[in-house]
């Protein structure tokens, strides 16, 4: 399953502080979209509004619409818990549950809500998820060992497998490679290419080469100064953003003149 995302007039607040102002963006299903921009421009904050994870911080809230195939995530009676099981997330630093084995890590999301799953179904899901995350061959002999014993890149792929096992419609990635070495980064990027056959992928990255390698479309976020809200400056095909942007700020950023 894969769904498109349409965001209308979204404003994100931390208490009284407006962090991200008036974002409108349409993200196609089965595509990879990259968010780029300088630190503090609100791209991670905006990403976290797409699965209502920003609400974890006390006082944070969002106004506007985020439509997942036409269904508003911020509509009345929508439970953030349901939203998060439909829109999965991979974090900046690999965060497998240290107390769980590799196998249990993959099944962590599936076992929530007291869902019962038979042993054979669980085995099949573990295998398919780990294969989907290109990790199966490396861990198939030690599924009962703790996930924290893997290398950083392997842990991050384990987290991706864990997210895939829940079968979300969208996978959000918040700088998934920033804590990884170049080899592991390539492994994750290859994986992102495969992920878009099943999921809508949105990735925040500081690495502009990475955005060019993985993304179909790229959104550039910017901030005018400290204390000002972040804004979506330009959103277009990745090639256009990097070679022929329509905004001066975008051109300055992608050509390395600031940020």
């Amino acid at each position: 399953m894969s769904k498109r995302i349409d965001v209308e007039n979204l404003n994100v607040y931390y208490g009284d502080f407006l962090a991200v102002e008036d974002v409108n963006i349409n993200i196609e299903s089965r595509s990879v979209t990259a968010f780029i921009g300088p630190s503090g421009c609100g791209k991670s904050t905006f990403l976290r509004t797409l699965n209502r994870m920003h609400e974890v911080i006390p006082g944070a809230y969002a106004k506007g619409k985020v439509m997942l195939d036409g269904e508003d995530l911020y509509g009345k009676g929508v439970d953030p818990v349901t939203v998060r099981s439909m829109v999965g997330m991979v974090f900046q630093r690999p965060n497998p549950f240290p107390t769980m084995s590799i196998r249990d890590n993959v099944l962590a999301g599936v076992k929530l809500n007291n869902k019962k799953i038979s042993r054979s179904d669980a085995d099949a899901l573990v295998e398919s998820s780990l294969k989907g995350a290109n990790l199966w061959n490396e861990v198939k002999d030690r599924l009962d060992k703790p996930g924290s014993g893997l290398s950083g890149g392997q842990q991050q792929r384990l987290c991706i497998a864990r997210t895939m096992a829940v079968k979300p419609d969208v996978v959000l990635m918040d700088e998934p490679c920033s804590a990884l070495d170049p080899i592991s980064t390539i492994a994750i990027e290859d994986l992102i290419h495969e992920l878009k056959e099943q999921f809508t992928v949105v990735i925040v990255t500081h690495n502009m080469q990475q955005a060019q390698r993985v993304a179909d479309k790229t959104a550039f976020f910017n901030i005018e100064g400290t204390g000002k809200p972040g804004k979506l400056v330009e959103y277009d095909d990745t090639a256009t953003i990097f070679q022929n942007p329509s905004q001066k700020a975008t051109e300055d950023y992608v050509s390395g003149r600031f940020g």
Partner: protein
Amino acid sequence: MLTNLSDSEERTGRRPGGETSRSSLANADTSGGRAGDKIFSGLSLGAGILIFVMLAAVAIFLTWQASPVLDIPATSVSGGEGFLNYVYPLVLGTLVAAIIALLIATPVGILVALYISHYAPAKVAKPVGYVIDLLAAIPSVVYGAWGMTVLSPALAPFYTWLSENFGFIPLFAGPASATGRTMMTAGIVLSIMILPIITSLCREIFIQTPQLHEEASLALGATRFEMIRQAVLPFARTGIISSVMLALGRALGETMAVALVLSTGGLQWSLIRTGNNTIAAEIALNYPEAFGNRLAELIAAGLMLFIITLIVNFIARAIIARYKEFSGAN
């Protein structure tokens, strides 16, 4: 390597007299720090050894003072049936009081700690935390007095009701104590005394749960309760065990509160009848008038308590070690 280093120091001019900088690597500049390092490592080693010396001194004292018990004829021991028959009701009583206290304080303590760390708004969490810590500041003699004069009479009707309705369970067999000064009351008072230990330690550990893991769980679609089960409790497991064991240590050794609350007597199943006794209370009540054989008896009972506490600690260590691989410390 050395030349390169002194060259660069000369160039950057960080150190005046660069031509001597080659020897300055080994000069007296750093020896002050070295000596400090040695003194500190000596001090910390000394402190570590001191623990062992004190523990050994206590163990030797207890064993030495208790050894006459072996020579006393069985008929001369209190109760007249030998030391083991004298001490085992006390050991059981001690364990029962501590277990009642733990059964009550562990779930309550963990729930309160979770409320403070994960549910309560910051405005409420802090005062609740302070109040719990205040419980730890109340002297045990005050708990004892309160348990004897307030809690016991208040519980007495409840015990009567228990014995009338659940008297078929040996633990609640009647006739219930009219004063309410029973093993059950002692256990309840102990549970209030050890509650702050469990709560404050668990709260500290729950707060330290990495945000990464909490978010990982939430992002998979966990409710707050599921997140606590998935991320917080496993992370805190060894900490919870440690806090419970610390609390158990306090409950086992607690003297004044039990001595005041409990109307002591022989060992029996019923928790709500007058009777039962604990090692600590037995020693506290009888030590001032004891001499000769009686003194050796009491000290031997103290040695038993010492051994029980050691065993409890070893079990706790073993449990913690079992989960080491999955503790997140690696």
